[in-house]
């Protein structure tokens, strides 16, 4: 029997079921008990097992196949014609790999940092992982929506229970913002269901929809995904959520949950309402450029490291949406694919880099319990190994060639040159701004004289932290120096997608 056909289901349900097991067994409320350490080991083991299985997914993935792969389809709600329908293509596969790659690192990072109810903490992360993989692989609209919304539940608890001082404000804002965005998407889904009689996403791609309806659907999708990405001006929940979330939560939020928005644009907005997307592409490009330039300046002025990285995330995600929506501004054929692939690469790369940046801040926070830039200075003197990592990731964040941060941004900038000089000019300003805010922070935190006693007493990375940052550093450099495997995975699908978008649905 060929088990590979159930691989996606296993990737979705293995973490969820392990999470439930953790919840049921529990830790008796004591982080130091032997039961709690067993829970940690189970969490790490299961997330590593999921990662190993996802490597099998990569190995069996066929780069030349234009359609969906690893398809599973069973009747779920016959009355609604809704199916348990999973499958992946070149857009979703890299994001699933990113998810399974980041989760074990998050489990390791939170190893003994979490003092309160560790079993529930790790359970929340495992359940979240399964749900996120579910979002990336669902091909049935209803199933997609269920995973999409269910994801909010563990994240709400992660920020609210294990977060910082203003965690309640931050988590409520996070939940209500994203909930508001997605309920409008639900209305659009039900409308599409009414038009086609099923929740099959391919049915939705092929049905004819009038321009007015397309505009409304696009707006509903835009609100849902813009909140998730997040795009200016609906980004304000992100700095709060990032600052208050525990390190692991920030990493998952930045590395994977923000990618849901970008993924949604590619999977839903562009192919289902191409004419609506064309109509509003100028708006999205404008919002992206504002995010890149304006939010870049905002990041420059931050005093809190996590907030700075959160704003830099918004600016970098602006490149993703810019790349996706350049399609209609480009006359010659090849640039559109470049922009879209660039956006995709940027998503993966930003997942790694921003995750790593939050981990670096987490390392400092665990020691000094402050995120303020002013409380640090001269960290390189006491933590040389850490300083090396932090500088590397900061360079990557600023888009230094040779790191993954360069590849995606460069592709998007080239594509925007083909579209319009000013798009490229404004987009490229990030190379200056990004370098300015990141390196200025590095200068103030890492270099200089030892600022105070706290810094003087810092201990360098322990093995656990070294492994986590080391693995991420390798990944960042690997994609920066040799992006071909990643780009090859996407190429066929992106071409297919551009063809699909090219067909008017009026």
């Amino acid at each position: 029997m060929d088990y590979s056909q159930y691989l996606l289901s296993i990737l979705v349900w293995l973490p969820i079921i392990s999470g439930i097991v953790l919840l049921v067994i529990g830790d008796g409320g004591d982080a130091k008990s032997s039961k709690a350490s067993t829970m940690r080991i189970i969490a790490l083991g299961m997330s590593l097992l999921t990662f190993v299985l996802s490597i099998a997914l990569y190995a069996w993935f066929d780069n030349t196949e234009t359609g969906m792969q690893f398809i599973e389809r069973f009747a779920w709600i016959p009355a609604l014609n809704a199916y348990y329908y999973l499958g992946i293509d070149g857009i979703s596969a890299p994001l699933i790999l990113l998810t399974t790659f980041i989760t074990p690192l998050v489990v390791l990072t939170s190893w003994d940092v979490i003092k309160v109810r560790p079993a529930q903490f790790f359970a929340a992360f495992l359940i979240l992982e399964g749900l996120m993989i579910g979002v990336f692989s669902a091909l049935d609209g209803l199933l997609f929506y269920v995973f999409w919304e269910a994801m909010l539940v563990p994240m709400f608890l992660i920020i609210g229970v294990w977060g910082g001082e203003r965690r309640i404000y931050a988590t409520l804002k996070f939940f209500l913002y994203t909930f508001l965005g997605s309920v409008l998407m639900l209305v659009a889904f039900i409308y599409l269901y009414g038009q086609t009689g099923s929740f099959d996403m391919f049915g939705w791609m092929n049905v004819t929809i009038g321009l007015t309806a397309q505009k409304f659907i696009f707006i509903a999708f835009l609100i849902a995904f813009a909140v998730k990405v997040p795009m200016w001006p609906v980004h304000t929940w992100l700095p709060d959520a990032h600052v208050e979330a525990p390190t692991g939560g920030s990493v998952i939020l930045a590395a994977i949950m923000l990618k849901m928005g970008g993924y949604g644009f590619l999977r839903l907005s562009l192919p289902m309402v191409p004419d609506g997307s064309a109509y509003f592409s100028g708006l999205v490009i404008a919002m992206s450029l504002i995010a890149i330039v304006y939010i870049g300046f905002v990041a420059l002025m931050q005093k809190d490291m996590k907030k700075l990285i959160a704003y830099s995330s918004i600016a970098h995600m602006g490149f993703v949406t810019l790349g996706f929506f350049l399609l209609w501004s480009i006359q010659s054929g090849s640039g559109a694919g470049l922009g879209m692939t660039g956006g995709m690469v940027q998503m993966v790369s930003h997942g790694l880099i921003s995750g790593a940046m939050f981990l670096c801040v987490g390392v400092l926070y665990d020691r000094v319990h402050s995120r303020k830039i002013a409380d640090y200075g001269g960290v390189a003197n006491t933590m040389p190994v850490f300083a090396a990592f932090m500088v590397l990731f900061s360079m990557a964040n600023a888009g230094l060639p040779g790191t993954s941060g360069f590849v995606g941004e460069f592709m998007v900038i080239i594509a925007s040159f083909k579209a319009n000089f000013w798009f490229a000019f404004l987009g490229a300003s990030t190379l200056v701004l990004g370098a300015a805010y990141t390196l200025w922070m590095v200068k103030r935190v890492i270099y200089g004289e030892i600022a105070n006693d706290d810094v003087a007493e810092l201990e360098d990375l322990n093995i656990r932290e070294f492994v986590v940052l080391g693995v991420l550093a390798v990944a960042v450099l690997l994609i920066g120096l040799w992006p071909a495997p990643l780009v090859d995975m996407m190429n066929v699908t992106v071409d297919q997608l551009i063809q699909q978008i090219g067909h008017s649905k009026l």
Partner: protein
Amino acid sequence: MTLTDYMSAAPEMTLLGLICVVLIADLFVDDENRVQTFWMSIAALAITMWTLLTTAPAESLVLFDGSYVSDPLSQVLKVTAVGFVGIALMYGRDYLRANDLHKGEFYILALFGLLGMMIMISANSLLTMYLGLETLALSLYALVAIDRNNVTSAESAMKYFVLGAIASGALLYGISWVYGVTGTLKFDEIAMALAANPALNSLPLWFGLAFLIVGISFKFGAVPFHMWLPDVYQGARTPVTLYIASAPKLAALAFTLRVLTDGLGGLHDVWADMIMVVAVMSLLVGNVIAIAQTNIKRMLGYSTIAHVGFILLAVFCGNDKGNSAALFYTLTYIVAAAGAFGIVILLSRRGFDAENLSDFKGLNARSPWFALMMMFLMFSLAGVPPFIGFFGKLNVIDAVLSSGYPGLAILMVLASVVGAFYYLRVIWYMYFEQAEDMAVLQSSADTRLVLSLNGLAVLALGIIPGWLWTLCTQIALSMR
């Protein structure tokens, strides 16, 4: 009339007979052994349930000269009503015992209320409907006042009684107008009369219809006839609130569907607007005022008003899809509502009612399991997938959208975002705050088991909602 005719009404007759048995037997039970009355009541419910399941007619059957109907709709509503009355008694038992309220009257009145609901559910004429309604209402008035020394209970019972009497009067007045215009009280004959003579569809009938809608709105607690609901929910002792919040909603749904669809379906254009106004106001008022509440029973009361808005918007569609959505929403809503009040009871103990939201602080530290169950119930009420409440909302939005009202659909989802806030606040108190009171939860194992099953049901139903969806669709199609 033959014996088989009576067979379809056997559940009601059985229940009535058993109530009399319990009533008499209870006289010989002393206060220490009052739990025997509980078990007798449960046995009565079990026998009624068995009768229901064994005497179900294969098709819709009209009895007693057209006053009584037994059809798939009545069957599913009655089975659910019997089940939820059983659950209400189960959750209430320990609380009543701890608070010296463990009297036989509670069980007798609860069973009489159930009888009233069953009569309402099976009513095929306006008069039978009224009889069932009054049987239920009188039991409820007395139940609310069961703690007669408690000033709030007495006050809310009085308020409920006076307002209920006014609503009953309005309803009877409306019935008399409908009777005057159509010359009949039976739903099928009203529909036939309307079809035969379109001229009847005129102002006098609309006038009567407006009063019928007042009655429906009052029974459901829809705005602007909702004033009694928060006060009664808060003033009644929690087991009584739980009872009022669950099964009677099924009877109210049957009332609405039989009157508006079976009887006056031909007047859809006229009543749709009235129902829509009432539903939209309920949705907005319920959700917004619930935010300001600090008492959880009152908050759940306002949340009920908001949920009623959803049910009525489904009824508003006036087609099979809408009726099916209304049925689905009601059935799934009471599962979550019963569970939520069950948790409120679970947190209470002798002399202490966990009425305030702040009593939920730190529940995760006191009992992670029941905090998890309450979280499931709250997310279900908020309409977050994968819990069943989401599919209820999906069903209603689908019905409204396919009837061509996108504006209403958007209003509904926006209202549910507002509503999400106060459900989230309960979760916030349970998970994000420190416990102020570390008392161990006291309740017997059987209650805990049922409560856990109740909490898990909202998740399980949400993962496999298909069968219930199909069932509701079939029932809606079986209605005339």
